[in-house]
């Protein structure tokens, strides 16, 4: 196919230009600031000192581990739950439309509101979850207060909030699978389960790629919910790199936080780029 003319690069221009000017140019500029001490008013070139300073952050290791754990846990959970929910919500259930709305609703509500609501819902004594559990005779854990559990509790809420988005993308993905394949599989004698694993899962791959990539990147970079719920606490137990950086930024260490952002970017890229490479190599073309 003469791709050069059928798929011309000028298609990229309109918003590519906007992206270049308003995103890429400032980003490259920012790189320079990572080599300076910068309080927004004055810059002083200090070479790589910010980077070495960043690596000396006392809770960096905790933060890095938490970042990876949080990113992995949330993106895996969102992808799996999203797919299951999408399958459920495209199967013509009673109240399907309502359920879709219900599941997407958390996406619409501000993180702040969700943070406040869930810190209350996860209150160890009067929180809805533990009250509910106590009816079942279970003594619920101290969700956000237990340093070993806090990160996972936030991850749980993050999944709760983000699964609607994953579900929506999966619903769109399921919509593009031709029913021919399901018919062929029914004729070939596939059970529901086999159809799910051998037709749906491979053919919904574009959606999976998107959901995994998006939720992994946002999981690795996320801090707003963590911030709203624990501020990285108790102590430093649920700190992630992004919240460490955010704290530096808030403290006014702009050069340092820029360096931190670049380090985080490298970490994210190290995880995501090989993954997308692998994903794209196995793309199913029609």
């Amino acid at each position, binding site marked *: 196919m003469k791709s050069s003319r059928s798929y011309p690069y000028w298609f990229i221009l309109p918003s590519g230009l906007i992206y270049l000017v308003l995103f890429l140019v400032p980003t490259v500029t920012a790189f320079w600031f990572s080599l300076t001490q910068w309080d927004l008013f004055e810059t002083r070139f200090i070479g790589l000192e910010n980077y070495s300073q960043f690596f000396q952050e006392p809770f960096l290791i905790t933060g890095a581990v938490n970042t990876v754990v949080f990113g992995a846990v949330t993106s895996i959970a969102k992808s799996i739950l999203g797919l299951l929910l999408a399958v459920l919500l495209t199967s013509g259930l009673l109240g399907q439309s309502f359920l879709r709305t219900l599941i997407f609703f958390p996406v619409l509500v501000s993180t702040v509101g969700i943070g406040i609501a869930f810190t209350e819902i996860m209150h160890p004594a009067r929180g809805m979850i533990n009250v509910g559990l106590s009816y079942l005779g279970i003594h619920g854990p101290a969700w956000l207060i237990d340093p070993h559990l806090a990160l996972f509790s936030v991850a749980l809420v993050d999944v709760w909030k983000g699964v609607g988005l994953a579900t929506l993308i999966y619903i769109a993905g399921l919509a593009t699978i031709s029913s021919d*394949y399901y*018919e*062929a599989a029914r*004729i*070939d*004698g596939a*059970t529901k389960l086999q159809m799910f694993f*051998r*037709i749906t899962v491979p053919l919904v791959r574009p959606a999976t790629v998107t959901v995994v990539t998006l939720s992994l990147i946002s999981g690795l970079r996320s801090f707003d919910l963590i911030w709203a719920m624990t501020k990285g606490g108790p102590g430093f137990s649920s700190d992630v790199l992004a919240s460490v950086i955010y704290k530096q930024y808030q403290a006014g260490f702009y050069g340092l936080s820029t360096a931190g952002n670049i380090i985080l970017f490298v970490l994210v890229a190290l995880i995501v780029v090989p993954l997308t490479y692998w994903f794209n190599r196995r793309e*199913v073309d029609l």
Partner: protein
Amino acid sequence: MASVKLKNIHKEFNGVKILKGIDLDVNDGEFCVFVGPSGCGKSTLLRIISGLDDASSGEIEIADKDVTHADPIDRGIAMVFQSYALYPHLTVRDNIGFGLSLAKRPKNEINERVNTAAKMLQLEALLDRKPKDLSGGQRQRVAIGRAIVRNPEVFLFDEPLSNLDAALRSKMRLELTELHAELNATMIYVTHDQIEAMTMADKIVVLNAGHVEQVGTPMELYHHPKTPFVAGFIGSPKMNLFEGQTAQEHGADIYGIRPEHLTLSTQTGKWQGVIKHIEHLGADVIVHIQVQALGTLVARADGDFAVTTGSEIYATPQQGREHFLSK
């Protein structure tokens, strides 16, 4: 092992009636061919038999069990889709072996059966390709392969050979006939190819606009079509059909004579006419003759029958080959 019985099957799509009461018995082990004009409902009927679609009303029995509401998986069928519906993410090998691997057959059994089918379909060299890298005919063969490896009780074929060349097609006819003999499975086969219909069928079902026109063996339909539609539809080139005097003399509405049952002569004959158009097919020539009293008469003659357009010619129907049909 499995007969297929259809009782008064109706089907509508958004209020349009597509099937209008189909009754049909296909016996156990029979090779039944559906023919009919494009859009008459053949595929629809196949989908209903397979269980992919529900009939709007009517009942289906397979192997004497009522399966009207059963799932495809419980009907013991395999099907070749008119649109192939190959799995785009699987190689040819996995496409063909899909049903077997669903049934959790052992690996080497799957391999063996896939290889056998691939050999028969001349797909051996392509086993590791994905469908998008195949030619049209190759895709169609994969679709056939997917159905035949499974040894079901009932096969449903929807124009399975339409994209194959004549040589391969005749080879496949043979293979499918052998498969039929070997498995003794019931086969329901949709085709537009006269030769396929005539040579493979135990029974041909002629469908027209959602109802059954006639059911019979190929030779019954060829020699004794009951309706003008069947008379015109079976046989190619199609039978010459005329209303008017000749028919009325015999108390019928329509008089018919097949092109191959007209004897042509330059000297004498029943009808005299002028040659309008000649088609050379090699083995035969098809002669279109303008006859004053009738209109156009099509006749078949030997390939070496030497005539030219515009010349005069006489055509005589062979005795006992004439058809008298009522509307």
